[in-house]
């Protein structure tokens, strides 16, 4: 299963529509999306299964069950994928389309692109190739994608701990 998530706040129709379009051409793949709270005017997917908002337990279950995650370039989604050791396709929200308040997700996506299990689609035209690449990666590399620790580096924690103790 491919798990699409656009975060828990705003919808992200450019991404949802692109993934829905990909799914229409790949009927053998099951895609489930958390597409955000949509208003009447928002375009809804026609191919994929979806829910506007998932309870945290259901979200975790989908994360565990999926082979590839597709998400906006938000840290919650990226950290979830890295922690559980799943490949992730990320597409940045853009200010010019009123998808977010600034373009920080563009920088986030660029920085995390260097991680082997992170696939960046700069915009909707790159979704299809990024999803294909992530699927191939999931088949070939699933055994070697090591989940990262659930916590920050010990060095960072040590510095924080000693600052707290010293107060």
């Amino acid at each position, binding site marked *: 299963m491919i798990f699409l998530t656009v975060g828990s706040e705003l919808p992200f129709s450019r991404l949802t529509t692109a993934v829905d379009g990909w799914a229409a051409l790949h009927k053998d793949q099951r895609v489930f999306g958390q597409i955000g709270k949509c208003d009447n005017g928002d375009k809804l997917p026609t191919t994929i299964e979806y829910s506007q908002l998932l309870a945290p337990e259901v979200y975790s279950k989908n994360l565990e069950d999926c082979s590839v995650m597709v998400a906006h370039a938000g*840290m919650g989604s990226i950290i979830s994928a890295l*922690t559980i050791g799943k490949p992730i396709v990320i597409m940045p929200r853009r200010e010019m389309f009123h998808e977010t308040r600034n373009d920080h997700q563009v920088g*986030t996506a660029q920085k995390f692109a260097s991680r082997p299990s992170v696939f960046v689609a700069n915009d909707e035209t790159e979704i299809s190739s990024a999803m294909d690449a992530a699927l191939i990666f999931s088949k070939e590399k699933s055994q070697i994608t090591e989940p990262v620790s659930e916590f920050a580096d010990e060095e*960072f924690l040590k510095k924080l701990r000693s600052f*707290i103790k010293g107060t």
Partner: protein
Amino acid sequence: MGSTKKVLAVSSSGGHWVQLMRLRPAWDDCEVAYLTTEPDYRSQVEKYAKDKSLPLPRFYITVVATRWQKFRLLRQLLETAMVVLKERPDVIVSTGAAPGFFAIKIGKLFGSKTVWVDSIANVDVMSLSGQKAASSADVWLTQWPELSNRKNQLSVDQDQPSSKLLRKPDYWGSVI
């Protein structure tokens, strides 16, 4: 020394919270309270405490507010102030955004030591709330060495307003 420190850990929901959770082993041996905007997170911090045989943290909720929702921001400010005054923490740690900014501003006035960890999402420039929190943050961190003062160590005199303009964040590491 010797006494258990009180820590108030603050963040809004989503990615900010995920990052705060990755830092929590730093305050395992402290008396801990959390302040966030999502009630569902309570079970997560309680489970962690139970699994590690730690005392249950106190857990506070404030309203969600964007920077354009003035009344909600005011309510968030007041609710955050109540929590800070009730807790009187030794240390306030925040990964952002607005509630953390408020907590650090208010906490600093009442003698708490303050730590701002800017979200790892901010790779080119410190977040707006991070920039605004700088003057009240005893520890002001970026998670990207390129943004930090690592290369050109500037001495920071917090009592000199002019030097605040020059202050660059420290880098202690990243949450992932």
